[in-house]
């Protein structure tokens, strides 16, 4: 294809948007609605997952050692635990650190009488943080078989709640994606049907003049892609401001929950959302225009 033809095709695609203003507006509105719904849902799901992940990362399994176990053995146990796939991090807490934390948290000035003494002698431990709390049971089963471990502390209830939340999020995500998909299909098929009636005559004329399928299709496809980009940009801008406001509102109005609710920054959300929304917009615009033209190419 000549560069002049390519340039002409691009210009025609751009001009097509303004030639059929109502059709273009309807298509942009359709794509923008789909992507707006998707973006809101995306921001909610990603934040809920982030909150759950943060909660998961604070859940630790603590292991204490048999009396008289050597430092070398403790180190070896630590190495073995670190190799487990479900383990994110292992922190060694010495008896002194355990006592200091306990003093600070619970005794305060009353700890003065214990100067030079450590009532928690022998309480050195590993705090094991996991990347998937649903595997806590597997880890505990393994730890029970490790030689040198005296006691394992864990919270089954917390792990179960978090696992259940994760499962519910997955199910709800799937359900909402299904509904969004159905709504999008309905809206897009309506827009495509409208596009067909707008394009029918024009495509027939082009074909009778001797335009190849490629030449007929190209401006419409470029038009579809441009409309897709506009249809993606508009909801992205709207969601950006809505997100910033919503997070500020939640943080000020529900500050009691600040320790539980964790929000990703708007930059973090949009670094994921912009490419996804643009791909969706361009994809919908591209496919919609392709289907519209395809039906009329056999003239």
């Amino acid at each position, binding site marked *: *294809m*000549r560069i*002049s*033809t390519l340039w*002409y095709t691009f210009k025609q695609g751009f001009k097509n948007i303004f*030639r059929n203003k109502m059709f273009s507006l309807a298509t942009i509105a359709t794509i923008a609605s789909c992507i707006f719904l998707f973006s809101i849902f995306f921001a909610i799901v990603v934040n809920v997952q982030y909150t759950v992940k943060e909660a998961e990362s604070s859940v630790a399994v603590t292991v204490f050692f048999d009396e008289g176990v050597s430092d070398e053995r403790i180190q070896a146990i630590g190495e073995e635990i670190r190799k487990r796939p479900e383990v994110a991090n292992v922190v060694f807490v010495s008896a002194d650190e355990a006592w200091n934390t306990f003093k600070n948290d619970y005794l305060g000035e009353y700890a003065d009488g214990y100067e030079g003494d450590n009532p928690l002698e022998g309480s050195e431990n590993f705090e094991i943080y996991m990347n998937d709390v649903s595997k806590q049971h597997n880890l505990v089963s393994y730890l029970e078989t490790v030689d040198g471990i005296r006691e394992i502390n864990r919270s089954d209830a917390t792990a179960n709640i978090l696992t259940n939340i994760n499962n519910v999020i997955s199910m709800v995500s799937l359900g909402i994606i299904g509904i969004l998909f159905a709504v999008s299909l309905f809206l897009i098929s309506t827009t495509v049907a409208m596009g067909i009636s707008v394009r029918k*005559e*024009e495509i*027939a*004329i*082009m*074909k*009778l*003049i*001797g*335009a*190849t*399928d490629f*030449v007929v299709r190209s401006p419409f496809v470029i038009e579809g892609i441009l409309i897709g980009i506009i249809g993606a940009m508009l909801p992205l801008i709207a969601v950006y401001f809505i997100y910033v406001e919503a997070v500020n509102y939640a943080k000020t109005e529900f500050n009691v929950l600040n320790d539980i609710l964790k929000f990703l920054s708007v930059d973090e959300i949009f670094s994921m959302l912009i490419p996804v929304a643009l791909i969706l917009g361009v994809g919908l615009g591209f496919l919609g225009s392709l289907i519209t033209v395809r039906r009329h190419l*056999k*003239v």
Partner: protein
Amino acid sequence: MITLQSVSKSYANGVPALNDINLNIEKGEFVFIVGDSGSGKSTLIKLLLRELQPSSGQIFVNNYDLSKLKRRKVAKFRRSIGVVFQDFRLLKDRNVYENVAFAQRVIEVPTRQIKKNVPAMLSLVGLAGKYKAKTRQLSGGEQQRVALARALVNNPPILLADEPTGNLDPRNSWEIMKLLEEINKRGTTVLVVTHNREIVNAMRKRVVTIKKGVIVSDEEKGEYIDED
């Protein structure tokens, strides 16, 4: 240039449109195809444009065997034929220049060449001063001239005109017919489907009459024959 050998066409509902048509049109001829509504004239044009395939028989147009023509070659074939229709079929949202230039763009003529060819063609049809006008701002006669300019800008060896005066008043009809005659004198084979008796009788060209899908008469310097 155009040859139809035992061509028949029936539609899916079984209605026969053309029956055993044999026709030969030489290079440089001017031929009227006449007949009343439903006689099969439009079907003939659609067959010649490869919009339809015959139920039986063979069609040769400008050295293309249309029965063997693959779908992807149809576009190239159509570029060898200029075509004008009763309803003009212009791109309504583009101006006169763009409508004519479009025929050149689809065959990838360089822009510099298009800028020379289109004004020359618009001069030929008498619309040089209206190249910027939107087609919906033009009269019927002017729209048909644009369609004619578009059909001719690529210098096709054949021009098919399907009822080119059907939507025009007598004065505009005559002007279009004079243009077609002029184009024919320049060497283009012209095939005009019409039921305009006055024009056919006045121009004294070859007249092929179709009645109920059958050629009933084919005469040099012929006249319009009434259905009854």
